[in-house]
């Protein structure tokens, strides 16, 4: 009864999507790391000078120059040796989030630099403090200009979560690998896995490009 042993494609997809919870959780937690880091690092890099700018740039450069998968392994395996014990989901969300956040920080900085100086001067002339100018005048405009970039980076984050399967988290990718261990059907299982990600990310890709076009000034992100 070999045929009865094979799962239908629908059944494969259903079992792969059992890992959707972990994929979604890592994505959401990652966004919680990415957005504050992007805003903070971008704003600090924009305003700081001299030594402090060097420190901020070094932190951003560290996250930018390390491969995300190597960071994931390094944090997962090496932190316990320094007495820091974090769960796999905490490590995964932090590494993926900060890695994406560093791309975001560059768009924040670029968007702030692209703003007309008159915006800031007008705010100051109206008696707002420098911080209020940043909060109420500069950042709202910068963030509006960055939304297409953020969406592109969100796609990178969703795709990046497939890496947490390598640090033992049962996301969609690891679910597929588990199914592949019990059933010999690589074509069905791995096509299903590709399709599972495509169903999630393709609409976001299309939406992102639509926004980019309508805003007409989305910067193309350089990918992980």
């Amino acid at each position, binding site marked *: 009864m070999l045929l009865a042993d094979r799962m239908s494609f629908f059944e494969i997809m259903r079992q792969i999507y059992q890992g959707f919870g972990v994929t979604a959780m890592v994505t959401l937690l990652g966004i919680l790391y990415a957005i504050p880091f992007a805003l903070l690092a971008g704003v600090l890099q924009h305003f700081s000078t001299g030594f402090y700018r060097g420190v901020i740039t070094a932190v951003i450069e560290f996250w930018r120059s390390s491969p995300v998968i190597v*960071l994931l392994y390094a944090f997962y395996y090496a932190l316990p*040796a320094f007495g820091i014990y974090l769960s796999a989901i905490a490590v995964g969300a932090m590494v993926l989030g900060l890695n994406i956040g560093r791309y975001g920080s560059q768009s924040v900085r670029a968007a702030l630099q692209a703003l007309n100086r008159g915006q800031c001067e007008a705010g100051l002339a109206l008696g707002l403090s420098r911080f209020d100018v940043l909060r109420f005048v500069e950042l709202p405009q910068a963030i509006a200009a960055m939304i297409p970039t953020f969406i592109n980076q969100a*796609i990178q984050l969703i795709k*990046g979560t*497939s890496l947490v399967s390598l640090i033992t988290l049962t996301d969609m990718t690891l679910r597929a690998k588990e199914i592949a261990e019990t059933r010999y059907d690589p074509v069905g299982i791995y096509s299903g896995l*590709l399709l599972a990600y495509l169903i999630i990310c393709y609409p976001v*890709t299309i939406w992102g490009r639509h926004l980019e076009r309508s805003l007409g000034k989305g910067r*193309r992100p350089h990918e992980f």
Partner: protein
Amino acid sequence: MNFDCAFAVRIVPLVLQGVGNTILVTILSFVGATVFGFVWEMLRRSHPLMHPATQFIIDAIRSTPLLVQIYFLFFVLPCYGVTLPALFVGVFGLSFYFSGYLSEVFKAGIDAVPAGQGEAAQSLGLSRRDTVVFVIAPQMLRNIAAPLGAYSISILKSTPLLAVIAVPEMQGSAFDVASDTYRYAEPMFVTEILFLILALIAVAFVTGLERRLGLSTPSH
């Protein structure tokens, strides 16, 4: 388990055994991704009917994770009788994944050449081929140099993923050390530092190359 610095230093040469393959895979994948990316872009421009089809392929490539694409190639190709060494599967996977992004680079690079350039060449009597080769392409090259450089670094940073299909590059060497010694902290930490250094060298190299070729400042 404590972090053993002496052990970490001792395993540096072992992890570095994979560096040759890391660089080889990066270069081959960069060439492959550039070729595929250019082909996608030419297909997209070839015929109005080809545009939506090619666009869908490019978007699909960009909407699925690299890891999943590599698993797909590695486990599915043998079912159709295609058995390649892991290194070639890895190079093919990286080339394919990044071609989706590079096609957009070519698109932007070609779009940024002013339309008048092509029209002027045509009115001077240049053939279509000469127009492309001698007028459009050199200006496109200037537009795409910086993003191509950035993507070459991205490709370098994606090579450690190939450890999952047992390509013997740096991350793979680190896992070999780890499984020989039962110590994971030091090899993973050393790999991170070595990749950081490698990436910084690569960035300096790419920036230097762009400057030497006079490509670092766009003409307009």
